[in-house]
């Protein structure tokens, strides 16, 4: 087991290096010189840009810049924000964004997981029937509406006309639950289609296996086979999917947060992009990649713990 974990850890190293390289190239080379972005304006003299360049260290050769960039990441030192909240440490800013993001993403994710799993079981139980086909079609139809239209129509009809939810705004704690209602609802509507499709195919795949036939031959009822045997065996892909989704939950939803005024990581990122706040963008890219790599590693380790065959590959 120890060697397996070690091997997986070693596999993660080139990926992390790759991510940092992509980030570095994107923001220091493709975007042009950060010094010009920072100083900006039309009446800037060449000397001023040169001084800024020296201060940022972008006058050095690219490999040297990359090495110092790696050093910053290793020390977890992402510097201070340029534009959004001038001179505040980036990590502090991002830390504040995590809680609002999670307070939207976590309930929404859990709700859609519960609804889609139960609907998927329902579909698998009545597979091929009108109920099954129409459930799939309706959820696929809900998935096919663009997110922006949901937001605009929802804000108008549900919030503005029928006063079911506040139109906009965010409060921390339980008081904010009402204002989170509409974004959570939209999130669930958008995600149901693909989730149900996935879980339904997992369940159907599982139902074609030999142990199901054995159970049926023993005389077990369909309900018992489905909930006691198929559900348990189908949990492996379900759990994998859940673990892999967790990093995305922390990043929050860009459009929903922005339209409903939730000060989460998603809206911070959008603002940073609009205002060219480089340190913030860099930190978000690097940290989210780190999270993804770590969670992928965790998934692999969990797999190896559950299924010893994986370790031998």
């Amino acid at each position: 087991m120890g060697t397996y974990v070690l091997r997986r850890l070693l596999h993660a190293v080139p990926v992390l290096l790759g991510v940092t390289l992509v980030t570095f190239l994107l923001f220091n080379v493709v975007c042009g010189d950060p010094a010009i972005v920072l100083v900006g304006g039309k009446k800037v003299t060449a000397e001023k840009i040169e001084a800024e360049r020296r201060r940022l260290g972008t006058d050095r050769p690219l490999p040297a810049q990359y090495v110092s960039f790696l050093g910053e990441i290793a020390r977890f030192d992402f510097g201070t924000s340029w534009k959004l909240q001038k001179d505040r440490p980036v990590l502090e800013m991002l830390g504040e964004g995590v809680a609002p993001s999670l307070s939207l993403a976590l309930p929404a994710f859990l709700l859609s997981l519960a609804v889609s799993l139960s609907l998927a079981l329902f579909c698998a139980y009545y597979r091929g029937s009108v109920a099954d086909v129409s459930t799939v079609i309706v959820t696929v139809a809900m998935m096919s509406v663009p997110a922006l239209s949901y937001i605009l129509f929802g804000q108008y009809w549900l919030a503005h006309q029928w006063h079911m939810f506040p139109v906009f705004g965010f409060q921390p704690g339980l008081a904010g639950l009402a204002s989170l209602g509409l974004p959570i609802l939209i999130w669930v509507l958008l995600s149901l289609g693909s989730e149900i499709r996935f879980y339904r195919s997992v369940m159907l795949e599982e139902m074609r296996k030999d142990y199901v036939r054995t159970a049926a031959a023993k005389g077990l009822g369909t309900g018992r086979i489905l909930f006691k045997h198929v559900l348990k065996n189908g949990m492996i892909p379900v759990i994998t999917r859940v673990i892999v989704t967790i990093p995305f939950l922390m990043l929050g939803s860009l459009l929903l947060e922005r339209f409903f005024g939730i000060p989460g990581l998603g809206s911070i990122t959008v603002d940073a992009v609009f205002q060219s706040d480089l340190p913030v963008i860099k930190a978000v890219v690097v940290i989210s990649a780190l999270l993804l790599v770590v969670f992928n590693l965790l998934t692999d380790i969990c797999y190896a713990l559950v299924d010893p065959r994986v370790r031998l590959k």
Partner: protein
Amino acid sequence: MSGAYDQPLPTRGRGRVLAAVARAVSWPLSLLFVLAALAWRVLAVPARLLRHGTHPERGVGEGLRRIVPTLQQGVRYLAFASDELPRWDGTVRAKDESHGPWHEARRRIARSRVALLAWTGLALYLMVGIAAQAGWIADGYDVADKSQVYVAPGWFDGPYFLGSDYIGHSVGKLALRGTAVALWIGLLSAVVSCVIGTVLGALAGYFGRWVDDVVTWLYTTLESVPEMLLVLAAAYVVNANAGWREAYEASFLAQGLGLSLGLFTIVAVIGLVSWTGVCRQVRGEFIRERDLDYVTAARALGVPTGRIIFRHVLPNVMHLVLISFSLLFIGAIKYEVVLTFLGVGVEPGEASWGRMIEQSKLELLSEPPRWWQLTAATGMLFGLVLCVNLFVDALRDALDPRLKDA
């Protein structure tokens, strides 16, 4: 060969009427397909002249003779006298030849009502898109009449059958014209990512060793940066770098092809970011196929490696590519809305559903609410995405060999 592959398309029973409707509606598309197949045959004639001259068996005469069966089969299909199209390269199935797995897939699709309905809708969208691109409908979508601002929809009001927007564009014409733009975006970005993903995946899977290591590293790295952030970063690149924009305006893409920077950005960003899924699938399938007997046999016969990869193995994994293509197609169309909202989408002068939705952000909340622009764009986008989604589901069921016995 015998068995399932040889069964004809169903002409009776479930979905017979729907199948007839679907075929009648997509008649213009079939015509285009037949013309394309014929074009291959016609183009082959000068090629034969150059290569074989007037050789009695391989020269021009043979080229001309080969046009005949393609023409016959095409006309028979278009006249509803046969249910078999010539193939895309102009060849026609011989009497004793097996129908093959694609025909089997078509048979399954022709039995599913949902799939037939979805195909009918998709065919309508394609025809609207082609007509709008050719200028037959939605002509004058970019004419703004400042005296006709925010006209409410009225069905027989000339150009304003779906109302007008804040500077007097006809919303109906914008929505129709937007179909062409959406189809361009979807097709181009899906082609870019499928080509990159398929070629890299095929090479990695077939050669293994260091090629595989490099490709795997590439796509794991790209997948480790959340897609949305890569897209945002690209948005930043375009927004922040004015020199980049100037360079593009002077390039062949803008000058020669008339592709606007916004469209190009969308296609490039989506195409370059979303090839990883296709690559992963194709690679896995190639690893499975490369040790099968037919590949070993081809290698032993001395078939060149490139030919083995692209002519022998690739057709066997094409169904996966086709499914990914359709999913990438709708993914790109949905992304366009988000990108336009973020300010990197299509330019203000162009008609696109994303731009319409973005512009109608505040129109609902005005008094009286101006709902038509948002509704038109949402409806058009919803219809297209739904049709493709449902059709992909049917396609996946039809192409999945594991479901054959179910």
